[in-house]
């Protein structure tokens, strides 16, 4: 396979770069090791920052957020819910910070307005009576799945190509130039090669891992942030805590839910990223200071993402700049490798533009960047799904007489048939995981207790599963739901989990394969 630019990483940054390059007439391939937005782009807060959160620590980021946020509201309005936002200080919060806040916002060109408590309460009845100071800003909520899928769709319509489930595992380098990238199809295990003129590493938290494959290590710290999704939407606006940025400061509404978070936990490696019970408790406790309802409401899922913080000087966690890092790797002795990492969802377009500028310059292509002026077309691809997971690509409703496989979320046999066909057309295996990723099966109150099972039975009936694959796939499916639910089990949830385990383990012995019982006849 050959292309002009190989982009590694299918998050908001990678898909943004693909669109930017394609609009400049540059041929590119986008590689993603699993699915679109399976990294931080699917594990974030969904806040289109007004910039006000960064005014004290990082004025540059604050100003960039303000500018890009305003631009995206114009160019990609269908991905954004322009909710507006409030900054709220409660009793005990730092008075000096509160007093300096409006002035600092103005300094970086961030529109801000003081709001009286009465007016704030009218706007957002959920606010705590302990609120002592409120300002309104231009925050909004953004659907990162729709954003990435629409960027991708526009890129594809201009010639770009996406390869999912394709992981870069190494590079062949000749005299300071990457000759090709070695890629593994993680489903088949097959290895293939892609020759490109320029290579862009847009792998977010994995940027160092990938750069090391080209002997160009990037010292970085991983900071995990966790979030919880409420069953019902709590507020109309984004609600921020008016204090020096710390944990559980933000509640972002999105569609019918609200997302509260986040935390900042330094981690050593990128396997098995998940929210923990302690983090969830912390988010709820801290968040309830601004919005007391958080301590009584129901939650449907917890998830986590990783912020890649590139070490510039000494320091760790939140004090490191969250501004993006664009590296030309010339000092590493490489002339066709570029890394873009860090930054924000809010500034993804700007990051993509700067990265594409560097690549285009090297390719001697002087077509201008079009993403700052051309609206992002709405595609049929993107649908809101739960954060922390890959996007839902199909949606439709069941027809009469069609047996429901998932009763909570109304997914029927014929809908599964369509998903199976589409998966096969893509060359993907129609297993429980893939069908789950493309539908709302298992995402309702039963969390897969019944539907995982019915789906397996149905797929066996269609000949898509064989031998004892079903046992392992049901386990994997249930565990994927469990990952996001376990940290939320605090009270009433215990009943549901007990029911689920009574069935799957008590009644069906799904925790073992039949191997455990082999040879029982031999025992006296």
């Amino acid at each position, binding site marked *: 396979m050959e292309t002009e630019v190989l982009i590694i990483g299918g998050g908001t940054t990678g898909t943004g770069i693909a669109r930017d390059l394609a609009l400049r007439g540059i041929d590119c391939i986008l590689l993603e090791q699993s699915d679109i937005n399976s990294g931080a782009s699917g594990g974030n807060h969904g806040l289109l920052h007004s910039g006000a959160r960064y005014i004290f620590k990082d004025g540059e980021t604050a100003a960039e957020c303000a500018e890009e946020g305003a631009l995206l509201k114009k160019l990609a309005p269908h991905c954004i819910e322009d909710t507006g936002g409030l900054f709220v200080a409660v009793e005990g919060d730092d008075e000096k910070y509160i007093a300096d806040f409006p002035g600092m916002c103005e300094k970086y060109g961030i529109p801000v307005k003081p709001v009286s408590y009465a007016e704030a309460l009218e706007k957002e009845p959920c606010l705590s009576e302990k609120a002592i100071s409120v300002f309104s800003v231009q925050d909004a909520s953004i659907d990162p799945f729709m954003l990435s899928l629409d960027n991708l769709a526009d890129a594809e319509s201009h010639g770009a190509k996406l390869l999912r489930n394709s992981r870069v595992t190494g590079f062949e380098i000749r005299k300071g130039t990457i000759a090709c990238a070695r890629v593994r199809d993680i489903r088949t295990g097959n290895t293939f090669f892609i020759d490109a003129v320029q290579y862009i590493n847009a792998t977010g938290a994995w940027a160092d891992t990938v750069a090391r494959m080209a002997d160009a290590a990037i010292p970085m710290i991983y900071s995990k942030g966790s979030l919880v999704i409420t069953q019902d939407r709590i507020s109309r606006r984004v609600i921020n805590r008016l204090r020096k940025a710390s944990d559980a400061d933000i509640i972002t509404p999105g569609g019918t839910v609200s997302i509260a978070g986040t935390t900042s936990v330094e981690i050593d490696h990128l396997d098995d990223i998940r929210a923990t019970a302690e983090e969830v408790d912390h988010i709820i406790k801290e968040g309830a200071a601004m919005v007391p309802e958080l301590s009584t409401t129901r939650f449907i899922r917890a998830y986590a993402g990783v912020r890649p913080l590139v070490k510039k000087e000494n320091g760790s966690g939140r004090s490191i700049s969250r501004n993006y890092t664009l590296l030309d790797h010339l000092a590493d002795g490489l002339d066709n490798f570029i890394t873009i990492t860090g930054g924000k969802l809010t500034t993804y377009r700007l990051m993509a533009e700067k990265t594409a500028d560097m690549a285009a310059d090297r390719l001697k292509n002087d077509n201008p960047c079009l993403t700052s002026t051309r609206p992002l077309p709405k595609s049929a691809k993107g649908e809101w799904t739960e954060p922390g997971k890959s996007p839902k690509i199909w949606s439709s409703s069941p027809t009469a*007489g069609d047996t429901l496989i998932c009763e909570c979320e109304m997914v029927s046999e014929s809908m599964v048939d369509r998903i199976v066909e589409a998966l096969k057309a893509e060359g993907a295996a129609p297993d429980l995981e893939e069908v789950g990723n493309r539908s709302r099966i298992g995402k309702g109150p039963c969390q897969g207790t019944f539907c995982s099972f019915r789906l397996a039975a149905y797929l066996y009936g269609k000949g898509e599963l064989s031998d*004892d694959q079903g046992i392992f796939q049901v386990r994997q499916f249930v565990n994927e739901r469990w990952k996001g639910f376990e940290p939320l089990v605090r009270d009433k949830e215990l009943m549901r989990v007990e029911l689920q*385990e009574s069935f799957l383990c008590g009644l069906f012995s799904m925790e*073992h394969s039949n191997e455990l019982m082999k040879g029982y006849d031999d025992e006296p």
Partner: protein
Amino acid sequence: MTNPDNGIYNVAVIGAGTAGTAASIFASQRGLSTIQLGRPSEMSFASGCLDLFSIIPGETPKFFANPWKGIESLLDRNPEHPFSKVSQKEIKAGFDAFSRFMETCGIQYTKENDANRFIITPAGTLKPTWHVPSSMSAGSAALKRKKKILITGIKGLKGFGADQMASTLKSFHPDIRAVTVQFPGREKAGDLMCERLAWDLETPHVLEKFAAVLASHTCGAETVGLPAILGVHRFVELKEKIESIIKKQVFEIPTLAPSVTGLRMKEAFLAAAPEAGIKTCSQSVKKIDMDTEGNFVFHITQGLEKERITAEHVVLATGRFMGRGLCIKDGRIREALFDLPVTGPDSRSLWYERDFFDAKGHGVNRAGIETDPCFRPLDANGDVFHPRLFAAGGILAHQDWKREKSGSGISISSAFKAVSSIRKGS
């Protein structure tokens, strides 16, 4: 015995799951005036099998074909397990008394004293159990004797995938195959429920048609497995009738809730209870007080009347979280009715493993109440909470019935021991 002479029941059993049902049966068999309270909802999940014990959970779980050897080995590792408070003789006596009662209601079991048997589940897994209801026993026998099995699914009955079962079992039992048939009169229905089909089959001509459909597929098979739909009341008769038409042995496979097998147990017990002198009331008890004599007092609503119930003894068989025997107060696990202390993991971060199916089982499942040797709950100081309060079943600490496959075993044996310790008029 339904209305005790002095208005005071000897025993009130709180809970209508296996432990509560067993405790009521044992109490009535001992001539104690008995009232049982609680919603029998959990029963509708029951497979109908009576498990005793077969697996020690752990990093490498161990399966025991012989339940007694299993219990011996379990107690070496886990000396506080509820089985430590009952002898083999008591366990057997409890199971005998329980199954004798069920047999009078028409539910028969096939059992071997020293061996667990397997039943096929809708997942195609093998589940070890001890007493197998006779409607399922041909399946266990066919597995053991390596007979040719045909699993029959029904179109529209989701969650019962005949192909899934046959494929999954193939490596364990090569002579197995699957077919999915249409249910007569319900060919067009998108979604079928087991209970509906079970009622359908109680009609003779439906049964005959269904048997005819089966007969056209059973060539080459020796034993035919069906979802548990063979009638709600006349299941023994219906099974025999189908067998005589298709000339093969037939066995049932328990299904997802609500299950017909659970329904049968519930209906059979409720029908036999009055004659056995057990008063039943399907209400949950929210609060229990004490009178000056130290008797237990609570209220139930009968129609519009509020009735005051007094009992000398209480058997707490309220189960775990689903049964509402256990609950969470201020982030800690407590017992719901008497606020008894619960042994278990301190913080909720220790409740569960990351892998839902972790072979060790989850810490929260071993939480429960502590008791003395005759199953009287202990207070925070380790003293008996009340001399006439007993506990049985899932609410007990130091067990994980879901993983051990010991649900009925713990329920029946603890209920037996508890009730045996009750002295009338004490």
